[in-house]
């Protein structure tokens, strides 16, 4: 099964940014004009499979694109959105980050109704979550490329004697 997002990267379709780890393009079917999708070049079906050292540039570039939306597109607001998993709205089998410039009355609804959860349930959730977050510590670093050592250059002995040595030899 081909991956839509990988195809976008290959075709360099509607691109607005590219470097060796991420590719950003104007959404082929945008929610609003200026909707940009940031795609990690390495295929990853869900967010959890994207290595940390790729997540970092994804966010950094998304932020820069968001800044550009403010400055150059006249956006009044921007949203960054990752839909991780089908119930979250993920509709490609490749983890992506959406940058959505906003204007008043643009017809987009990304709001939710706040709910209230009883204290004891909140406490139980808190414990469950803390149990999982205590493992968070080291973040993946990009594996270092092996360094090629240059062979030391052969030091050629100068034919000229050292000037100072010559002076020494002249001393009586």
């Amino acid at each position: 099964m081909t991956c839509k997002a990988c195809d976008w990267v290959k075709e360099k379709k509607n691109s607005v940014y590219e470097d060796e780890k991420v590719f950003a393009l104007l959404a082929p079917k945008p929610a609003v004009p200026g909707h940009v999708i940031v795609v990690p070049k390495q295929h990853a079906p869900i967010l959890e499979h994207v290595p940390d050292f790729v997540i970092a540039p994804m966010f950094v570039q998304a932020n820069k694109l968001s800044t550009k939306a403010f400055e150059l597109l006249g956006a009044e607001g921007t949203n960054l959105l990752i839909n991780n998993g089908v119930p979250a709205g993920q509709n490609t089998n490749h983890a992506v980050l959406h940058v959505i410039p906003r204007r008043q009355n643009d017809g987009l609804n990304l709001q939710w109704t706040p709910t209230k959860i009883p204290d004891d349930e909140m406490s139980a959730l808190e414990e469950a979550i803390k149990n999982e977050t205590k493992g968070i510590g080291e973040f993946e670093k990009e594996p270092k490329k092996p360094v090629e050592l240059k062979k030391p250059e052969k030091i050629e002995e100068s034919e000229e004697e050292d000037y100072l040595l010559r002076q020494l030899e002249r001393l009586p």
Partner: protein
Amino acid sequence: MEEQTLEESTAQQCIFCHIIAGGVPSRKVYEDDKVVAVMDINPATPGHLLLLTKEHYAIMPQIPELTIAHLGVVAKALSQALLRAVNAQGTNIFVANGFTAGQRAQHFMLHIIPRTENDGLALGKLPERAMAEDQTALLQKAFSGKKIETPKKEEPAQKAGEKPARKPAKKPAKKPAGKNEGGASLDDIAKTILGQ
């Protein structure tokens, strides 16, 4: 009379800075030297987390690159933790910069929202519209434009950008006291961005 710096007065008014400092009770689930994650007390779904920067920033463009990178990797780790802790089937990672985008607090935050099927949330369902060819080309050009130079003098309307007419500054909507980001004009946003 000693004048407060802008940072001091913002920190005094910002409830999230108080939460981070421990002055207001909260349910912290993760903390390191740059960020803190707390449970949202009015969650979209059970387990909804807010990832906050310890330093006060109003919107993401103000945040330094290294912190942005850190926010990203911590958000991913928290998403993973949340999936396991609450048996969610998915998560949304969501940032709102600006009142129009849904920002309701003056302290930058990143939402991590656990999702399950039929949980009733509209978040994530993005409409898909067609895009005209010429619009694509225009937008590509806009995004490739250089950042606007900071004007030396205070010039409210003059900008050296290449994009045509912007919408005027938005109407002041109802805001809680002390909030400053919702009504900021693009100039202010741009100045804070370029001031880095």
